[in-house]
């Protein structure tokens, strides 16, 4: 294939044979209980320097309790996939956990914009579609996937994609390198102790992200019996053999919402999104993350029953979520 143009960005890449070998040797196919608390899960499966991916966002079904635990454990030099991201990437950057971000959409508030402008955080521009296709390629075990976005634009030039002449049509087509993250963190409505998991509502890239990642931590609103999956196999999104750890995390998406359980906390969200300077950010991190030891303690001391009840009461739409 004739290479017509190469994007200039560095990109995270694992040879599909190396990924397969990792899956063969390290992905646990035993029917073994993987339930653990978030502290153990993050200690065991998130390392400084990892490429980290997560599903959905800080508004809806994002893995916020796991993000807070990563910050608490002061993981460093993460490279994150900000496909559809808002405040979690801002918090990770504020805590000094992240130095590279692949961007689909990054809710650039003034705080993160400054981090990018002064070079503390390096951003690689892709798009939501191209990053999603990269995860699909990673999940399929292939080295790249062709697609017809990015073509012609500066977004392409600043990405890590390559344009070649398609041998079938003779037209230029973009090749997106597969993305196999080191670790994925995914919040779901229901999981069993082995890691079988399902989500309700739009999925963004739940399965692709889990399937493409070397290590996978699931946090779940509720833990259910395995028979629940066997009763409705169409609804199983993630099978157990993709998963390394299961964390029971009710209100795990807070301050975002989880469909069928609770709505987002708009007040907390606004407070967070109005953070402008370093001082305010460090105060927030101290108040809501460093000063508590666990998600349970966070809910008890920083959210409280009154707020929880209010957010549960707001979540009255159940259609499709049961």
């Amino acid at each position, binding site marked *: 294939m004739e290479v017509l143009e190469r994007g200039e960005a560095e990109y995270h890449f694992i040879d599909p044979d190396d990924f397969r070998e990792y899956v063969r040797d390290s992905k646990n196919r035993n029917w073994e209980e993987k339930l653990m608390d978030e502290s153990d899960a993050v200690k065991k499966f998130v390392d400084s320097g990892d490429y980290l991916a997560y599903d959905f966002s800080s508004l809806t079904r994002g893995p916020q309790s796991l993000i807070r635990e990563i910050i608490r454990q002061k993981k460093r030099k993460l490279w994150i996939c900000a496909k559809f991201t808002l405040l979690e990437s801002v918090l990770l950057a504020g805590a000094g956990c992240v130095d590279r971000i692949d*961007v689909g959409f990054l809710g*650039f508030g003034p705080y993160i914009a400054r981090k990018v402008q002064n070079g503390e955080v390096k951003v690689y521009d892709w798009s939501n579609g191209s990053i*999603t296709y990269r*995860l699909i390629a990673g999940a399929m075990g292939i080295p790249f996937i062709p697609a017809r976005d990015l073509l012609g634009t500066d*977004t392409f030039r600043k990405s890590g994609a390559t344009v070649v002449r398609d041998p079938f049509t003779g037209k230029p087509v973009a090749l997106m390198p597969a993305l196999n993250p080191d670790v994925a963190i995914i919040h779901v409505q229901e999981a069993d102790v082995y890691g079988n998991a399902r989500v309700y509502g739009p999925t*963004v890239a739940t399965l*692709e992200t889990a399937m493409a990642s070397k290590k996978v931590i699931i946090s779940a609103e509720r833990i259910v019996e395995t028979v629940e999956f066997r009763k409705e196999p169409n609804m199983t999104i993630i099978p157990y053999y993709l998963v390394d750890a299961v964390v029971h995390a009710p209100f795990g998406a807070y301050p975002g919402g989880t469909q069928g359980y609770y709505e987002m906390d708009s007040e907390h969200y606004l407070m967070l999104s109005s953070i402008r300077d370093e001082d305010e950010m460090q105060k927030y991190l101290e108040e809501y993350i460093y000063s508590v030891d666990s998600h349970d303690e966070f809910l008890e001391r920083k959210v409280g029953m009154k707020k929880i009840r209010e957010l549960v009461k707001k979540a009255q739409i159940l259609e499709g979520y049961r």
Partner: protein
Amino acid sequence: MRYTDVEFMICQAARLLEDNRTVFVGWGMPQVVAMLAERLYTPNITQVFEFGAIGPRSRTPFLRGTMGGPQNTYRSLQWCSMGLAFSYAQAGYIDYGMLGAAQIDKYGNINSTMIGENYERPKVRFPGSGGGNEVASYCWKTVIVMNHEKRRFVERCDFITSPGHIIDGKTREECGLPRDTGPWRVITSKAMFDFDEETKIMRLIAVREGLSVEDVVNDMGFRPVMADDIQVLEPPTDDELRVLREEIDPFGLVIKK
């Protein structure tokens, strides 16, 4: 009734959509456009959201931050993945796309990434493409909605996030983009444009009531092609404004911005 620039643009955009078509809907203003169109003009339009909601009957009022949540994805036809949502567009199933932009050039290339000369040290940094690049690359007809300010209409965008008709001298097809796609209308707070069939340059086809052609062109960094017959855009109707203000966005999250 008096109306704001945003209300003006929303109403123009809502009138452009055709019924029994599919539309890729982005965050914020496009959501409100789609809701208004669905209520008044196009009851059978199918909205498609990138995170994986197809054909929702979104609840009103519009609430901040609920895009992927139960209100906005209420009674969808299908919930799916982002990969599938974009693939519907890439395979040709999506008629309309609707995008905002920080900058636009005469060929309809748009910038939603950064302002400044140095990419590494941007003067202003925006959220980036999101799904905008896919919408502009794949949808049959892309509608761009933006405030009419001179600094936004530029010779060359500081950063081309999403493709227009001619990109640094190359046509869309030469770049490998799908045939017969591209920006179709540009709606601003002062005017409406399409693109000249031959030159692919933005063409002024209508101006807002009370404004002259010169009022519009003086606020642009390049000179558009002029249509033979430049129309006057009908202002928002009382009915449109009532639905917008009372039913769709009573908190003014989008229309009062």
